[in-house]
Structure formats: C-alpha cells, structure tokens
C-alpha cells in the first residue's frame, strides 16, 4: 500500500501530459533559438507539434475514450496536414 506522501505526490495523467507538452515546447524553442535548420530539423519540429496535437485530442478533448470513427477522423486530419507540410518542405529547406 503506498504511503500517504507517495499518494500525495502521484500526479494525474492529465498533469503528466501537460508537463510533456511543456517539455516538447521547450525543445521546439531551443531548436529555434539555436538557429538549427535543415530537412531533419523541420521534420523533427513538425513531429513534436503533431505529438502534442495527438495528446490534446486524446487526453484533453477526450477522444481516447470515443469510438474509432471519431479517433480516425482526428488522425486523418493530423496525418493529412503533417504529410502535406512534409511534402511542401521537402527540398525547400535552407541548407
């Protein structure tokens, strides 16, 4: 049985998601401030953004517990925008 102090330190899942999103935002800002660029950097930053949108949809908006067509519709939007932007930035990134 967990002690009272351990139980009080246990964070809600939504709090972990919030901390995770702040961490990914810090990574994105650090990449921007370091002046990093190039195709892998662009894809990495886009990937971080779409991980965050997935977390918002599933954990904050509650799609995690919705039936599959709702989750599929959201995933389709995320995939379409991510892949479209990936194509748009392919070979057009500063060397």
């Amino acid at each position: 049985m967990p002690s009272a102090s351990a139980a009080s330190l246990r964070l809600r899942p939504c709090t972990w998601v919030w901390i995770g999103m702040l961490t990914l935002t810090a990574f994105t800002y650090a990449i921007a401030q370091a002046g990093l660029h190039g195709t892998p950097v662009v894809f990495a930053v886009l990937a971080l953004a779409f991980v965050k949108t997935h977390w918002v949809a599933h954990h904050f908006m509650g799609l995690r517990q919705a039936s599959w067509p709702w989750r599929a519709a959201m995933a389709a939007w995320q995939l379409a925008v991510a892949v479209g932007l990936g194509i748009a930035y392919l070979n057009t990134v500063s060397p």
Partner: protein
Amino acid sequence: MSAPTLPAINSRPPGDLAIWFVIFAELLTFGIFFLSYGFTRAHNVALFDASQQLLDRRTGAINTVLLITSSYFVVRAVAAVKADDSRAAAHWLFAAMGLGAGFILLKLNEFAHGYAAGITLSTNTFYMFYLSLTVFHFLHVVVGLLVLGIIAQKAWTGGYSAAEHTGVETGATYWHMVDMVWIVLFPLVYVIH
C-alpha cells in the same frame, strides 16, 4: 481477485455532438490554410525565410505555454465538475481565462509592433499569410474566452453537476481546439525554415 478495469469506450466524444462538427470544420479550414502556407512558401523560400526571421519567437513560445497551460486548467475544471465541485471548476476556468487574456495581450502587442513597423497584408506574401493566420486564430481565442466566461459563470452559480456537465465539456472542447491549432501554427510560421 477482480479483473483490471479498462476505461469505458463511449460511442461519442465528450460535449455536445454539434461542437464536434464545428471543430472538424474549423480544423479543415486551418488545415487548408497551413498547407497553402507551406506550398506557397515552396515557391518563395528566400522571401519567407527572411521575413520569418523578423518575428518574435520568444513571444510565440510564451503564447504556446499560456495556451497549453490554459487548456490543462480547463481539463481540471471538467474534472472538478465531474467530482460535483462546481465552485472549484469555476476557479480553474477563471484561471484558464486569465492565461487566455495573457495570450490576447501579447498578441495585441505583437500586432501593434508589426503595424508600427509598417507590416500589413500587402507588405509581402509571407506577411499576408502571417497576419491572416494569426488574426484568424486570434479571433478564435476571443470567441473561446467568451465561451469560457459563460461556462465559468454558470459553474460559479452551481449550474453544472456530476450528472449534468455537457455544457462545460462543450466549451472545453472548443478551447482545446483553439490550443491545438496554435500548437501547429507556432512552429510552422515562427520556427521551421
């Protein structure tokens, strides 16, 4: 020994069904906007990259933190309503509105600086997209704040309960959509090049 319980799968997501049609329509609109930005940039790479360097990325990052945290507070508000603590829900919603107001102030400051520097929709193609996208999103933040204000007021007066909380979930879902759009908009317009 009882079997572990899994989260219940509902046929519909939280909130009113109509808000989800609104949300998908909004996401479709913003998605087309984002792809238009990306493919227009592909034909004007030097112009877009040079113009983007003049944007204030620090303020953009702070705004991301404000909206993400505001969204988290709204999640806590919905959880409080489900726990039959309507007053606590109102506190979380007022805090979320405070952060949303912070976003508004920083954005107005950014727009004012841009306007003072002579940046308008006709300055160049990049700034046309930058202003269109950020002002369009800004208007959604304003609407979202009004929605949060309405549900916060109702929560404050005990209008929601564990048994009846569709209204607060509907408003919360809209606010999360506003957050989600900014999560893509910030790296796209301010960071990647």
